[in-house]
């Protein structure tokens, strides 16, 4: 378990201990995006692509040889390329909105690849990389943003719950699901199941997230809270959400919290595996704060130049999650230029396929409005449907004459 490096004074510690605590200004400064994430940041791969040994977490990525790392690199490149394509399609009026993940590929691929088939993930609405890692067809996902569907994948087959737009709701839903895993006796050994839920730094201010922490804690639910602290909740910075690093909140609920470099795919994979492993064995929950940065807007309706400085963006560009893996692979001989070119070509083809599909995405028939509101039907709704369809038929027959 990670040590608590930023301890709090206990009653009786005396004035010296209290004085040794950081001032509120220092705490806030430590929260800001331009910080390095602090000494407590777990990192296995530096922004320069140097491998940092970790006595605690190396064992969780023992199996990640050059080939596996190339796989993680490929995942991130494909997801980023799809994200950029979708962003462009929104600008061209082909998508109603897009929620960019640019910069958060490592947090999502690292945690997503740590999951097993029987695990369940509860996403927010930016988790396109986790969706990809769970085998969700990106085409199915794009229906949400072209506004043809609310959720187009089989949540059970992929272990990937529908996107949740209302901030923080999914955290409680995930806590309930994880309680179910516990009640069914699916935790306690290496084969145990676990749940992971994703939310942002802004969501940590929501009551549902707090309640999710309480429920998961008191029922010992096998739940990994995966907070992607991308520094901005639309235009509100992290210091508008918290006076202390978010991972430290876990302590108040009685479970471990850890801050990981969210731009380091290897560290995200290792820390997520560790946390999921704790859950599988019945030692959950765990809070992971993936310290990362949203490189693009909150959504395509947003204009980040109104609220943040370009210096900040430039600083974070140097910590790019893909470039550091590329540097590590290239330097260590894990991949050659042909590999990088192949991945780029694959990503371009992937994006082109998404584009073709999106442009030709069928629109749902009008009576879909009425479908599946209830599992067991509703006579009032049935008569509304009939009336509406016969109204539409009226236009059809008028057109025939």
């Amino acid at each position, binding site marked *: 378990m990670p040590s608590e490096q930023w301890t709090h004074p206990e009653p009786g510690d005396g004035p010296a201990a209290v004085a040794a605590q950081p001032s509120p200004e220092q705490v806030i400064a430590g929260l800001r995006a331009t910080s390095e994430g602090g000494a407590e940041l777990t990192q296995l791969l530096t922004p320069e692509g140097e491998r940092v040994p970790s006595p605690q977490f190396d064992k969780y990525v023992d199996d990640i040889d050059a080939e596996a790392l190339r796989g993680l690199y490929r995942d991130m490149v494909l997801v980023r390329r799809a994200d950029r394509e979708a962003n462009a399609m929104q600008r061209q009026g082909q998508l109603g909105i897009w929620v960019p993940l640019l910069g958060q590929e490592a947090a999502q691929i690292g945690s997503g690849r740590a999951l097993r088939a029987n695990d369940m993930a*509860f996403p927010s609405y930016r988790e396109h990389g986790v969706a990809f890692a769970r085998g969700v067809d990106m085409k199915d996902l794009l229906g949400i943003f072209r506004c043809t*569907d*609310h*959720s187009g994948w*089989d*949540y*059970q087959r992929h272990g990937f*719950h*529908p996107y*949740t737009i*209302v901030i923080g*709701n999914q*955290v*409680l*839903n*995930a*806590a*309930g*699901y*994880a*309680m*179910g*895993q516990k*009640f*069914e006796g699916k935790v306690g050994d290496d084969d145990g199941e676990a749940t992971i839920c994703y939310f942002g730094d802004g969501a940590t201010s929501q*009551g*549902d997230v707090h*309640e*999710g922490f*309480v*429920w998961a804690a*008191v029922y010992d639910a096998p739940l990994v809270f995966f907070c992607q602290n991308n520094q901005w909740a639309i235009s509100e910075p992290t210091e508008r959400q918290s006076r202390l690093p978010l991972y430290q909140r876990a302590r108040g609920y009685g479970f471990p919290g850890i801050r990981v470099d969210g731009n380091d795919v290897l560290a995200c994979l290792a820390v997520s595996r560790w946390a999921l492993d704790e859950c599988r064995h019945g030692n959950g929950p765990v809070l992971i704060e993936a310290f990362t940065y949203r490189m693009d807007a909150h959504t395509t309706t947003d204009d980040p130049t109104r609220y943040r400085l370009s210096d900040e963006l430039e600083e974070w560009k140097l910590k790019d999650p893909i470039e550091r893996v590329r540097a590590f692979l290239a330097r260590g001989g894990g991949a050659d230029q042909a590999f990088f070119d192949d991945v780029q070509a694959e990503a371009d083809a992937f994006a082109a396929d998404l584009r073709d599909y999106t442009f030709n995405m069928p629109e749902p028939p009008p009576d879909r409005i009425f*479908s*599946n*509101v*209830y*599992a*067991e039907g*509703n*006579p*009032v*709704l049935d008569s509304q449907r009939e009336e509406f369809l016969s109204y539409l038929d009226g236009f059809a027959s008028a057109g025939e004459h």
Partner: protein
Amino acid sequence: MTDLQKLTIGKALNLGLRRAMEEDPKVLIMGEDVGKLGGVFRITDGLQKDFGEQRVLDTPLAESGIIGTAVGLAVRGFRPVCEIQFEGFIFPGFDQISSQLAKLHYRTQGKIKMPVVIRVPFGGGIGAVEHHSESPESLFAHIPGLKVVSISNAVDAYWGIQEAIKSDDPILFFEPKRLYHSGALRAEIDTSGTPVPAFSSQVVREGTTVTVVAYGPSVKVALDAAAAAEDEGHSLEVIDLRTLSPLDLGPVFESVRKTGRLIALSEAPSESSLTSEIAARVQQECFYSLEAPVLRVTGFDTPYPPAKLEEHYLPDLDRVLHAVDRSLSW
């Protein structure tokens, strides 16, 4: 074989919950104080003792948490039955109810089912402090994807709660709290007999002069008014709605075509309420049968008053009879 038991609404609910838990191990009860205490109204009395702490969950104290985790448990395949202690405390859970519980089936084109029941003791007349006597059912009837029902008697309590738990749709189950332990409403129930279908409106007293439609605690008021009206020579037909969403207004239309007059009775404030909806639909369907405008007897459009004033706020027998007179004077 018959198994006749004479039960109050409260005991009938308790026995109905017990049966549902016996029949399906996926049924869970969850809420504040539902375990050892048996709920603040003792509706879940003895269930934790017999089914254990994993099937009757004394939860932390947060309504969004109760409902939000019930949603997740339902995704996992459980059938949670949540208790909200008093209707006035349901609002922290409103977000989870309207955003997740009501919509997940629709959002996933039917892939996720939400067999969740939320039991809500509601209504006034118990002399309580604020937030303990309200009638917010119209707010939930307005949300697509939810079913909203209300019981008024022990037979429906026993069968209705079992039917609600068996349903694959999320159900808000409104219980008339002031009648839970009413000895007068004790009913003989054949607990091993054929289930009584609960979710359709029902004529509970036949009459010819004026129709009164009510639900939950107001059904008793309507029946008392009908008994009193008889002495004055008026024959009231009383209909118990039972289902508030979807509204089953067929029997109401039929009755209005017979009597030509309708009074819609409810404790809730009148503006934008179930009684508004009933009035609108009845004028749409029965326009040529109406001899008088549809009248409403309801709570006022105020917050629920201090309980020393509730006898004036709550529709009673006299206000119903006054409305009968107004209807007949048209």
